């Protein structure tokens, strides 16, 4: 790098730099067919990648909301006093993994039970007099992985009658969640790789089609960097234009989907369009510019070794 930059920056004048810039723009225009192919390839690849990323982001959001619902229920002995109850509560709060704790009195529990019975509510009428349901703490934990540990600790506390943490289904849930997360990541990586591959394929072809011109330049004494710069800029522009197109498509497409979901499906709430698109806009522009530029340079290499 140091060697390269020395060569480049000591030799290059601003005038020449301007020339490279103009040259790259003029090449894009003159090679319309190929420029169009490259730009649309970048746009298409990033568009698909973007769809996937939005999909994955939303799935992850839902998964997180499922994770959020996992809770530990710690039932209290009927003889626990209010004082003792506060003691237990502060003891539970001391456990680092605990995120929130809510008290549910015996009355709350009965009410809940009645609601669960729904239309058969009347069945519980007799219970009002001598409420057999225990009071409890409902505890949320930061990560599903910490549930087992936390509930074990709570179970050992004095005054706790029993702990329910749905550990049997929890294991399955954790596995499913981890699977979904891992496969999302794998898909993004695969798609990203495929996208980069497709883009550099196209850029390679556009460079390849000009191998004769590149040879001529070399033969009349152009340095490698003199030939490279316009191609570098060209690749960066192509990548940037493609990225911009993909971002616009994603923006309008996703905003539309968000609207449809909000009015017709209601149940999910999707991540808002603005937030994601703004993040993607930067990422994609940078990805486009970098892949375009690098793609050009790498494709050039084989033609410069002459």
């Amino acid at each position, binding site marked *: 790098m140091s060697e390269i930059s020395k*060569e480049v920056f000591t030799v290059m004048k601003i005038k020449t730099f301007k020339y490279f810039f103009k040259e790259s723009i003029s090449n894009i225009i003159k090679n319309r067919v190929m420029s169009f192919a490259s730009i649309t390839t970048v746009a298409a690849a990033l568009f698909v990648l973007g769809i996937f990323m939005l999909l994955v982001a939303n799935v992850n959001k839902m998964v997180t909301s499922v994770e959020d619902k996992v809770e530990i229920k710690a039932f209290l002995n009927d003889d626990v006093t209010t004082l003792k109850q506060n003691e237990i509560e502060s003891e539970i709060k001391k456990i680092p993994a605990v995120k929130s704790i809510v008290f549910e009195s015996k009355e709350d529990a009965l009410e809940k039970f009645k609601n669960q019975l729904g239309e058969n509510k009347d069945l519980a009428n007799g219970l009002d007099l001598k409420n057999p349901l225990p009071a409890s703490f409902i505890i949320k934990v930061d990560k599903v992985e910490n549930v087992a540990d936390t509930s074990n600790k709570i179970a050992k506390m004095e005054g706790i009658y029993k702990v329910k943490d749905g550990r049997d289904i929890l294991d399955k849930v954790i596995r499913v969640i981890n699977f979904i997360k891992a496969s999302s990541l794998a898909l993004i990586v695969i798609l990203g790789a495929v996208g980069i591959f497709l883009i550099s394929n196209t850029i390679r072809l556009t460079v390849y089609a000009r191998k004769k011109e590149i040879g*001529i330049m*070399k033969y009349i*004494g152009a*340095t*490698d960097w*003199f030939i490279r710069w316009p191609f570098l800029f060209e690749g960066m522009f192509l990548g940037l234009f493609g990225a911009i197109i993909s971002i616009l498509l994603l923006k309008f497409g996703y905003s539309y989907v968000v609207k449809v979901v909000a009015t017709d499906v209601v149940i999910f709430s999707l991540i808002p369009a603005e937030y994601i698109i703004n993040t993607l806009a930067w990422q994609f522009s940078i990805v486009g510019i970098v892949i375009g530029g690098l793609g050009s340079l790498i494709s050039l290499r084989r033609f410069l070794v002459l």
Partner: protein
Amino acid sequence: MIKFSNVSKVYKNNHIALSNVSVTINRGDFVFLVGPSGAGKSTFIKLLLREIEPTSGEIIVNNVDVQKLTRKQIPMYRRSFGIVFQDFRLLSDKTVYENIAFAMQIVEASSRDIKKRVNQMLSLVGLSNKANMYPHQLSGGEQQRVALARALANNPKLLICDEPTGNLDPETAWGIMELLNDINLSGTTILMATHAKDVVDKMKKRVIAIEKGVIVRDQQRGVYGYED
């Protein structure tokens, strides 16, 4: 200025294009390279440009061993002369003006110099009115003259021309030869591969004749000499 010592070139298909060629060309010389089709003239020139590398032997130009040039030195080396290729090698997506200007842009000449010099070159080869045409819009002879104008643009100390008048009518060709003669007289060394018997015979310059890859004649003030 140019010194070939026992240079041989065998192409990949085992064709011996040059065999044991030794020759010296001095500063200020005007040399015609003649020989039948396929004799090895263009091979000689390509070796000089380091477009290809010799199978054996040594090529010294301006006291530099051409084979020892690093990748980075090659462009500088190539800029030290002007070249007219047998197949022109114009940049097809640049206009006539831009093609000539390109040769000056690579040596980072100033815009003013480029503008002045390119226009001067265009009028020298009689193509001022074709400045904005693309190569495919030119006649064969016009393309050839653009190639010459490009080769001359940087005022090279050594000018190498591979068949620079093959597509030109005798009158235009003579104009070009007079131009080259003037350039030679002002100090530029000229090496020109050609089939133009008339020209060679009339110019009375040094003639190096190659046949089947071997130098068969090297004559000061020579003639073409292949008439049967």
